[in-house]
Structure formats: C-alpha cells, structure tokens
C-alpha cells in the first residue's frame, strides 16, 4: 500500500486532576499519492494533533500510522529518517514557520539537501520559487521582507523542495487575508498534485476545502463523523454535524441571509 494509512489512531494527553484528553480518538484515514483529502473540523476537534502525529511530532497512544508501508515513529531527539522526511508540513502561520534570521533561499536549500534525487537533481531554487509564483530574486531576502501571502508561498516552496510524497497543510490559509485564501489553497493543490504527492489539507473552512479536495473527512471531538467524495458531502451531508457546519457558512450573495445557528 502506498501513501498514508491511519488505522484506529488515538492520541491522548494526560491532564493533571482531570481525565485524560483524547485529542484524536480512533481515526481511520487514507491519503493516496496524487489525491487531495480535506480534513475539516472546528477548533479543538483534534485535526492539528492528527497532523502532528503523522509528522512524528506526537506519540500515538494507540493505533498505527504507516506511510508507504513503513511505520511512522515519533521523532524524539533523533534526526528524521529519510523515508519519513517525505512527509512535509505547511504550517498555519507563515510568520512563524520561517526562521526570521536566515535568507529564504538558504532555508529552501536545506530542504533541497534531503530531496530523494539528491541535491544535484532536485529542482532548483528558481524553479521551486517559480512554481509558487515568486521571482528567483527573492531567494536573497529575509522573511520579514515578504507579505503574509508571499511568505506562505515561500513555505510551500520550501516544503516542496524536499520532494515530498505527502504534503500536509495544517490550516495553511487561516491566517491569510480572505482574498488570498482560495488562491493559496489552489496553489497548494496544484504543486502537490503536479509533483505526484498526496495532499492532506486541514482546515476549518469547508467552503474552501470544497474547492480543492477530492475527498472530505469531517472531524469532531477526535473522531471522523463523515467521510466521502467532496461533492457528495457538500450537497448531501449524512451526519447532522456536517449539516450544521454547512448551514453555518455565510455566503457572499448580498442577500443578507443570516447563517443557521448551531443548537447542538
């Protein structure tokens, strides 16, 4: 089996004086190469914990994570093994995910160094930047010299430089201006799918996920409550929570319709 496979994944935290918190509570999910899966849920539903576990940043309390047939082990203090470095993450806040003291070109170069084809055959920095719509000249700049949207493009270029087979976007558009969100989401899809990688796109915003995902999984309180092809979930949601989620999305149609209120 190639791609990402989660089976019965559970991630829990001990809490002092409180029962353990199961942030992720028995999740089965697959992401095949070249496939775009949207993981949608509201704050605290466990979607970011799931992303961190897939990257080896959280230790599962139960269940398995396999990637191209290999088990994903927690990262700890070791160097990340090459086979697992083919899972890459694009973070929510591009202001925080780039080292402020290093030129972006150097940061992309670090990622090229672990490209499976080797540094010589990995795509050049200019190509990587061009893929995300930036000039090669910006490689010499520091992160603070970019706007938020451009910074997220740089972060995407850096993730792609590692030659990933699976790209995870953890709320990659949540801190961007509304006018950029759909654009950057589309870009993420295009570069991932264009390179043959799978994309797990995690977001609270179903209206954007819907425009790029082949499949959508809706997560609530650590569990996936509904999963299916995007258009099916959007037009005929089965789970009551999915229905509420969709009903609550306001539409810019100028009609002044107030979205439905969550009574749950």
């Amino acid at each position, binding site marked *: 089996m190639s791609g990402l496979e989660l089976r019965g994944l559970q991630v829990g935290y001990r809490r002092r004086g409180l029962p353990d918190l199961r942030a992720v509570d028995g999740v089965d999910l697959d992401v095949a190469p070249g496939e775009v899966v949207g993981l949608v849920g509201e704050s605290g539903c466990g979607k970011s914990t799931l992303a961190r576990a897939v990257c080896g940043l959280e230790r599962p309390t139960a269940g398995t994570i396999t990637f191209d047939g290999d088990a994903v082990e927690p990262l700890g203090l070791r*160097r990340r093994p090459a086979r697992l470095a083919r899972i*890459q*993450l694009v973070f929510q806040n591009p202001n925080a995910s780039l*080292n402020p*003291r290093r030129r972006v070109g150097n940061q992309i170069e*670090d*990622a090229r160094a672990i490209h499976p084809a080797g540094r010589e055959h990995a795509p050049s920095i200019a190509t990587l930047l061009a893929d995300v719509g930036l000039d090669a000249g910006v490689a010499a700049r520091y992160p603070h010299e970019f706007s938020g949207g451009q910074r997220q493009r740089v972060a995407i270029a*850096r993730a792609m430089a590692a030659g990933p087979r699976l790209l995870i976007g953890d709320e990659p558009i949540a801190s961007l201006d509304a006018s950029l969100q759909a654009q950057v989401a589309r870009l993420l899809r295009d570069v991932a799918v264009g390179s043959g990688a799978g994309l797990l796109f995690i977001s609270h915003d179903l209206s954007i996920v819907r425009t790029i995902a082949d499949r959508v999984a809706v997560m609530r309180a650590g569990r996936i409550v509904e999963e299916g092809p995007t258009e099916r979930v959007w037009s005929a949601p089965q789970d009551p929570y999915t229905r509420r989620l969709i009903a609550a999305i306001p539409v810019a149609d100028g009609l002044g319709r107030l979205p439905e209120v969550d009574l749950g």
Partner: protein
Amino acid sequence: MSDVLERPGRWTRRLAPRGERSPWRQPLAVLGAVVLVVWLLVAALAPLLAPFDPLEQSGDRLAAPGGAHLLGTDSLGRDVLSRVVFGSRLSIPVAVALVVGCLVVGAVLGALAGYLGGWVDEVVMRVADMVLAFPTIILAMVVAAALGPSLVNAVIAILLVNWPQYARVTRSLVLGAKTREYVVAGRLLGAGPWTSLRRDILPNVAAPVLVLATLDVGSAILVLSGLSFLGLGTVPPTPEWGSMVADGVQQFDAWWIGTSAGLAILSVVAAVNFVGDALRDALDPHTRSTVAGRAL
C-alpha cells in the same frame, strides 16, 4: 491580480521607519562607543599617558587634586590619575573576559538543559539552583579563599558563581524557542538536534542573553573589586579600580581616590550598556540590513 493584493502591509512598514530604529542614530549608542574606544586607547597607551609611575611614591601623601597631580595622590603618595590609567589595563579586560567566560559556560549549559531536557536538565538546573541560593559575593569569597588570593583565582571564583544566571535565561529562552514552528519545520526537513540548536534556535535567542551580558560587565568589575577589597583578588600594589575604590572608602577625607576610580567604573559600565542596547537592535533581523548599510 496577486500583484494587486499581495503588497506587504504598508502600515507595518511605516510604523517602524528605518532611520528611527537604527542604533547609530541613537546618540547614547554613539556616546557609549566613543567612551569605550577612548578607554581602550587609554589602556593601550597607558605608559605614554600616565604622568607618573603608578607604583612609585611621586608626591606628598593624600595630596588634593591640582598642580602636578591632577587627581591628587593616595595614602602612599602615588599619583591617582596614573593609577586610574594603568588600572584600565587590568579592570577592563578582566571584566570583559569574566563576562564572556560566564556567558559561554552558562549559555552552553543552559541551552543543553533546555533542548535535551530529562536528566541533563535536572542536573544542570539543580546545580545552578544550589549556586544561586548563596549570595554571589560570599560564595565567590569562599571559593577565592580556598584557592588562595590571586587575580586568576578570583576570576575562577567569579566564573563559578556567575554562570547560573546565564544558564537560567538561556534555558528558558531555548525552551520557548524549540517549539516554534520554524524550529519544528527545520526538524521535519531533516535537521538533527545539533543543527537545529545551532542554526534555528541559538541565533534567535542570542539577543536577550547578550544584553544581559553587557549589563553584567559593570557588576563583574564590582565583584572583582569586592574580592580585591577583601584581599582575595588582585594583590597590592597592582593598580586596579576596585581596590582603589576600597582604598578610597578607607581614606574617606581623600574623596578623590574613590571618586576617580568610581567614575572610571561608572563610565565603562554606562558605555557598555549603551552599546548593548544598540547591539540588541542590530541583532534584530528587521533592522540588520539598515545597520549593515552604515559604518558598523
């Protein structure tokens, strides 16, 4: 369209105009740098500048400032000005070496404790707590007394009691920094722990530690002089500012002895602090390009 929509926020830029934050526009930083340069020149050219031999009796005892002795003489009739000038050759380099030593030892131990956690953290921080539990000067006295009075031993004593504050600060900064997203991103892109610490973490936590160090230069001079005062540091008749202040305290009527050395210490401490502030700004990546553009 992306061009239209993706200009960097114009306010964020304009709210921090380049010139305003550039350290060399701050008069205090320039003043501090000038004072330090002057002191370095004084130390280097001491034999040429000093009117008398600092160790020889060159006039009446406790002569007031004026005449041949611009800053008067001390209880043994030695020229105070000459002793201040020669004292800079000892006090300034020793203070700087002390601070650098504490900084390196403390920062390395603190960074390891913060990054590795577990038993390394426990051991380093418990030892640091033990040292911090004693008043600095008393512990330094104990160590210096055990090792025997000499300048080198005094330096070792101060090093042993002074590193924990750097270790504490560095540790907490590293703890905060190691979960930052760019550090995690670096790890995901294959950086091992050492690369991560050296490349992504330390440069981003260095500024506050360096500022702490500049603030510490003054207290290093003072602690060293404290030990000298107690007879545990430099051995008389070596000219050293701290022991001159101590001398001045004993000869209270001869105010010029303590005051001259005290003002020398004050000027160095203030100058280092001013430059330290400028250094902090210069280390900020948002202003670095501007600083590099000027004569740094």
